[in-house]
């Protein structure tokens, strides 16, 4: 029996299904390793410099500007955390941010359209991990940074480039699997 075009044609469905199967297997494989998450929210600014901004004073913080952040990051990479006082996942990750801060990772907080009293209460209740705090009063900063929602964290390297990003509350696994390797890579 010779291999004809007819045979090749009949093989096509198997080839298509096979290719799809291999792709699905790759996806599942990378999902279980944590490298692939179809539900992840990526930020196009990763790998680019953070945008220009200024945040106003709130809570114990006096606010800061892009220049402040750039200067601090040049000394040591900074973790920028967007949060809000009413946000439950933000309270959930407060301990973790506290321990990172205790280890010497500078954590800077930006509250989203928040109020003096509520932010102070939030920091009293859940601890204050932030080296500097500011308030995004107008909501402009959130938009410029491309934030999906609070909490969301960005890692800034010595050159002011966003190296890593995560939308959602941080967890021990996430810090171990992603944040620490990212910190190590730019240390």
């Amino acid at each position, binding site marked *: 029996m010779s291999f004809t075009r007819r045979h090749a044609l*009949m093989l096509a469905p198997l080839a298509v299904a096979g290719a799809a199967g291999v792709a699905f297997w790759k996806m599942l494989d*990378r999902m279980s390793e944590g490298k692939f998450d179809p539900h992840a929210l990526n930020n196009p600014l990763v790998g680019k410099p953070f945008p220009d901004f200024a945040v106003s004073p709130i809570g114990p913080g006096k606010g800061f500007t892009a220049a402040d952040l750039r200067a601090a990051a040049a000394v040591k990479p900074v973790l920028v955390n967007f949060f809000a006082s009413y946000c439950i996942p933000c309270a959930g990750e407060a301990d973790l941010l506290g321990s990172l801060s205790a280890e010497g990772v500078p954590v800077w907080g930006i509250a989203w359209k928040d109020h003096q009293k509520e932010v102070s209460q939030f920091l009293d209740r859940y601890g204050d991990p932030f080296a500097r705090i500011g308030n995004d009063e107008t909501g402009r900063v959130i938009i410029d940074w491309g934030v999906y929602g609070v909490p969301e964290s960005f890692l800034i390297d010595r050159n002011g480039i966003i190296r890593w990003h995560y939308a959602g509350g941080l967890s021990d696994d996430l810090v171990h699997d992603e944040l620490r390797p990212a910190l190590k890579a730019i240390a």
Partner: protein
Amino acid sequence: MIPELGNFALALACCLALAQAVVGIWGAHRRDIRLMAATPGLAVGQFLALAVSAGALVWAAVHDDFSVANIAENSAIAKPLMYKISGTWGNHEGSILLWGLILSICGAAVSIAGKNLPSALRARVLGVLGGTSCGFLLFALTTSNPFLRIWPPPADGQGMNPLLQDPGLAFHPPILYTGYVGFAVPFAFAVAALIEGRIDAAWGRWVRPWALTSWAFLTCGIALGSWWAYYELGWGGYWFWDPVENASLMPWLTGTALVHSAIVVEKRESLKIWTVLLAIGTFSLSLSGTFLVRSGILNSVHSFANDPARGIFILALLALVIGGSLLLFALRAPRLASGGIFAPISREGALVLNNILLCSICAVVVVGTMYPPFADLLLGQKISVGAPFFNATVLPLAIPLFAAMAVGPLLPWKRARLLPVIQHAWWAALAAVVVSGFCTIGMKVLPALAFGAATWIILGSFAEVVERTLLFRTPVASSFRRARGLPIAVLGAAIAHAGMGVTLAGLAGAALDSQKIVSAKVGDSFTSGGYQWTLMKLEDADGPNYTARVATVYVKKDGVPLGLMYPSRRNFTLQHQTTSDVAISTNLLRDLYVVLGEERDGQAVLRFHVNVLAPWIWIGAFIMAAGGAISLSDRRLRVGAPSRARSTTEVTA
């Protein structure tokens, strides 16, 4: 004790399914009459075992046995009895059990209804069904066992997602799954035919009723799902091109193609290889769609617990079932002899066109659904594909399909001329043009075209009936006599096609919809869509497992009172979840649709929709399914034995 019995029955069913696969395929291969005769018994036994297993799960749910993990996670004492029962298939583990149960019902049905089948073919079909079943039951036993116990048992369960506590959704999964799983039978027939290396007209006649039954169930299942989305989610829409919805649409499209191409196999012994591929493809899409959703790859609003380990098992199973059958196809299909030849313009040609267009639409839906995860994997890009893509790509393919739908059944087999056929259907074409023209006044082009196409399909579908009965040309009594002699399948096809036209009209009606969102105090009145809406009252009410806030809205049109509507918001205390309960008032030509939103400072957000012809979408779908059912009652399909059936029908005709 009872859950253990259920678990044991599930394991027993798995063993029986394995035996069914081995005995069926080996017996047919060896031509061993005793082995082949044993397979139907094994299939019925597997069904009985799974019925016991499913019964045990329902028993545990009804008796609030929270020591069973699945019941503790999905049920609660306060849940109404109906949802305790329907809740058993409303979660991952239970739905796999339901899947297996329906597959075993299919096997038992083939065993009992397939007495006329050649014994080797029946043994092979049951063998393939048994093998597939064994895989899924193994999946249930190892990774998704609904009977796992927890200790200590909680005092009360966590309850069920309130959105799912709805009568429409209680029966949606069994009907949808019957559609999905039913396509396993045409699949098994296709694989059996490939093993045998022989396909003839009789094969087409045996496959068609199974394909048609599954298709009718799938149509109803999809319609129920979209109807639920319409009245339960309260977003005013009914189809969101969500991956799970697309997963049900794909096998529907190829299944529709299969129902049509099997006609060609049956009547003309042509398109055999293609029909076999469609049978394999339809079941493959049923399987991969539903199961990929559970692996977490597809990003969907329908959530199932995502577990990559579970995903790997599913993928291996899919590779075995789909890959195995396609490999067999690649090896055996080139040797299948192709039959009757036909001219491009002929009944066969029209059915080929139908197949090409349906499969193209399916390909578009597959691409749109699968592109985001693939782009993410290969290019690292985050993309979401939404309604604009599907509307822009599906419509251009659907329009020629609609145009051909009414003409196709009028064409004779083998070779035809288009002109005489169009002459027969001139009145339908004229009506379509008039409707289109009338609709262009005050409407955009596309909806006007869609209304024209709907008219064309509905009237054109009955052109063949009119033609064959010589209606309006002979006395009514003579027409009636001719109608009685008409093959029931012809009537069924006309009704199913007309149903599509009704659905299309319903979809096109969306162009005339109007909606208004207001923030209202009690006593406020608004005008929207030509109706006057007044918020009369806002009050609290209690349900069995929720508390509700109910608004009373008074509707008038031109000063004529139309009645009161009660949209509400339900707060399910156990799950801390709020659902909106839409108020719908329909007169079958339009739906008045009111949603109660958040309440703040004594002002409630209300949405008023006037959805023109919306009920037609679902009515059309049920007419389609009814057409399929009527076709099924045709003796030629029901008996499935060519010689006997033919002689009797011809004598009576």
